[in-house]
């Protein structure tokens, strides 16, 4: 391929004591694609996000963002470079308003409060949360917290967005809204990597899928290749691969 991949993960391992949460994971992502990241509980999906975004440096291997090595960079630097993530367990800034939460994200790109407020309101309208702009973030129900998380991270204007189970705990209608948001975000030119347990949703939105199992990459391919892969089916259903 001629173009540099926006994200390239080369032989990344992460150890906690003797435990390998990730071991020798490699794959790369092209611009504007949606990569699905799936695997059973404890497969190392969130650890991989933490390695990529600088919360844990990888024990071995390299992470390249837009061709530049970024492992060892602090999370705030990674965010400034244009890669941002959400949290599996949402982290609203509880005693700040919804608008202020999103403004904190927008302030990564501007020093002026008025400009940040404008950017933030635009993101809130985008996720349809503008009617709650003045409410305290701590008082939102889970569905709106997830939307707030997405609006806030989009306000940092990432080129690559890592979404960690943004549909977890949502009802079907709320999940559908998030799916539409992810597809809108793709249309606006942002590359995304999505961790999700809802198989139907992940098959629908992903251009490619990486499957992790016990910290290792088990498979990679198009959604229809993944569902047909006997090893993946075995990992999920706990049967032997034969």
């Amino acid at each position, binding site marked *: 391929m001629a173009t540099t991949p926006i994200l390239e993960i080369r032989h990344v391992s992460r150890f906690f004591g003797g435990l390998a949460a990730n071991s020798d994971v490699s794959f790369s992502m092209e611009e504007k694609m949606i990569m699905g990241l799936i695997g059973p509980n404890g497969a190392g999906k969130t650890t991989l996000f933490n390695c990529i*975004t600088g*919360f844990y440096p990888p024990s071995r291997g390299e992470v390249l963002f837009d061709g530049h090595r970024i492992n060892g960079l602090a999370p*705030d630097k990674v965010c*400034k470079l244009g890669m941002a993530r959400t949290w599996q367990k949402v982290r609203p800034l509880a*005693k*700040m308003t919804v608008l202020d939460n999103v403004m904190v994200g927008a302030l990564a790109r501007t020093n002026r409060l008025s400009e940040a407020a404008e950017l933030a309101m635009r993101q809130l309208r985008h996720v349809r949360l503008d009617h709650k702009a003045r409410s305290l973030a701590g008082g939102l129900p889970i569905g709106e917290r997830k939307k707030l998380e997405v609006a806030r991270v989009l306000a940092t204007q990432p080129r690559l967005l890592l979404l960690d189970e943004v549909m977890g705990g949502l009802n079907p209608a709320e999940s559908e809204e998030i799916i539409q948001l992810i597809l809108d975000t793709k249309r606006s030119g942002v590359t995304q990597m999505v961790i999700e347990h809802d198989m139907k949703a992940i098959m629908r939105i992903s251009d490619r899928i990486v499957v992790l199992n016990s910290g290792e990459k088990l498979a990679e391919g198009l959604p229809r290749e993944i569902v047909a892969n006997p090893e993946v089916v075995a990992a999920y259903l706990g049967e032997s691969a034969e």
Partner: protein
Amino acid sequence: MRALPALLPLAALALLVALPAAMTSPYALHLMILLFLAITQGESWNVLGGYTGQYSVGHAAWFGIGAYVTMMLLQFHHVAPWWGMWPAVAAAAASSLVVGSITFRLRGPYFVLASIAVAEIFRLVALNWKDVTNGAEGILMSDLPPLQVAGHVLTDFTSKVPFYYAGLALAVLTIAVNWAVHHSKLGYYFQAIREDQDAAHSLGIALTFYKNVALAISALFTACSGAFYALYVGFIDPATVLSTEVSVQFVLISIIGGIGTIAGPVVGALVIVPLSEALRANLLSDVIFRLHLVDETSPAGLFLKDNLAHAHALIYGILMVVVILFMPEGVLGFARGLLARRRRGHAPPVAEGSA
């Protein structure tokens, strides 16, 4: 109606500026000066503890540096305090950055413990480096040179009035600093760090950098309050400006008033200063005797009379527990809650109203 909240502080300020003309009692002026000092301390701490959520119980370090450097320059090198306080403030801000770069690796209770340890280090240095600090004897100011502007004597500091205005200026300045922080990018970043450090980090906030900025601002104005205290009282020693008790005072003022708000430390100072004065003047034991709860001449009465004045640490402790249990948002947050409930048309429950 909307202009009222903006006009109220201005009216209060005008009243405070005019007050010394009407108020001749030195004790009343003294009380006001203590109040301004407490406001300055609380507002300074609030930048770091209130907005940024880093509960320092070591602000005696910056208070002490401000007091000591100003006094040492004045007493041993004859540098007038309005010059000497600048190196003092700079020393506090610079050393706070060194300390912050180390201690901000720690989070939550570990940071609190480290902040206590740091203040203790400064106290022990002041206590033992006798050639420079005069050790446990402390430094007694022999006299304050008159303040001259263009050969004209502005004041010779024989009355409390110049201290009143200096204190008022400091209090107003630190309130303004909190206002400026609250209405800037810094305020957003500080509060984001307070609410969730990992979320803040992932949103592009350099944690240690912004914590250090908060600490430096906080230490700078804390050192101002230390210099002011030293010049007003005219005597400092490690126990009065560098002890843990001093650090706790900083925390108390903000927590009682309501942390992370501009008005909180003002409210806290209005609670703490009269209370500590009442304890010092034995008002509490007088009340107990007058209500005939305890006979003044009985052994218990004599014990109370002798010891209640020194029991402020105990009373502060009880007060802190009561506030944390019943008013976690401080007196200010509690009052706001009551007001909001009234407005919604519910009478406040009696139990809470009297708590």
